[in-house]
């Protein structure tokens, strides 16, 4: 967790964009480690592959286009900082109202989770409950997510490929 904080602070302070991209990759990898410790292996998998892998590569590809120095004006952005601090303070204020971490009385543990865990072997017959929830109980959501990825991909391709044609 300390490393996470340090990396986040470094991302804000460092001005070289190349370093920022690599640091955000490091941040994602640390997050993946945290998820593994929390036994959320599926999420850790995604975080390591997408956050640390693909998005870093894509950001690097973008940097190759735009150059790696930050040429923006370095003025203090007091307004945004105030808003971020306020939002953070509200989130921290809300934390004590949440059930204690890992507490068996938390709403998610008394309501749907036991049902999923008990019924999955009988109703669906596969050992990985996470996959069962994603692909079966919530298959409509997942279909929507795939559609989002599809649309996003098409959108990016249209934007980038379209501009190129105009230039020629």
């Amino acid at each position, binding site marked *: 967790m300390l490393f996470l904080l340090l990396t986040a602070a470094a991302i804000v302070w460092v001005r070289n964009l190349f370093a920022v991209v690599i640091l955000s990759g490091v941040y994602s990898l640390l997050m993946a480690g945290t998820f593994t410790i929390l036994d959320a292996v599926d999420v850790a998998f*995604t975080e390591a592959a997408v956050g640390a892998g693909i998005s870093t590569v894509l950001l690097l*590809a973008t940097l190759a286009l735009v150059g790696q120095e930050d040429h923006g004006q370095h003025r203090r952005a007091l307004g945004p900082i105030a808003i971020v601090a306020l939002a953070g303070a509200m989130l921290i204020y809300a934390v004590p109202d949440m059930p204690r971490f890992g507490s068996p009385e938390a709403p998610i543990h008394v309501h749907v989770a036991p049902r999923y865990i008990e019924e999955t072997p009988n109703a669906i*017959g596969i050992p*990985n409950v996470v996959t069962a929830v994603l692909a079966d109980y919530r298959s409509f959501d*997942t*279909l929507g997510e795939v559609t989002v*990825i599809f649309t996003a991909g098409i959108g990016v*391709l249209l934007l980038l*490929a379209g501009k190129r044609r105009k230039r020629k």
Partner: protein
Amino acid sequence: MNEHLILRVVIKFLIPFILLFALYVQAHGDYGPGGGFQAGVIFSAGLILYGMVFGLQRLRKVAPPKLVLTFIAIGLLLYAGVGFVTMLLGGTFLDYGYLADISTHGHHYGIILIELGVGITVASVMIAIFQTFTERTEENTDRNVGTR
């Protein structure tokens, strides 16, 4: 990147394992951690690595852009198609129980099929985005070289 001999040899050695691991994650999403999304990303990471080290031209030979574009749609259609097949078999949309005589087997088949659809779409979207990005980069460098 042509001069990095060690990098090229090591990457060449690594890529089959990355692709194999992606297929393992894809096929075992129902038993272990992972699933279509993770598998698709890992698979595309393998191909992107290839493209980074050996150049966009050779990546295009492995994964022609038109084929990649087609696969983006095929994945989504496979997912939605499973839904319509279950409707034809008498169930509701995406009700996998109707895919086989035994309901649990039907669910199993359904999950494998839609995970495959997810994997195909995710992998091809990532590859397509990478190809478009690097294509523009290469064009820019070409133009810069030309003006010098």
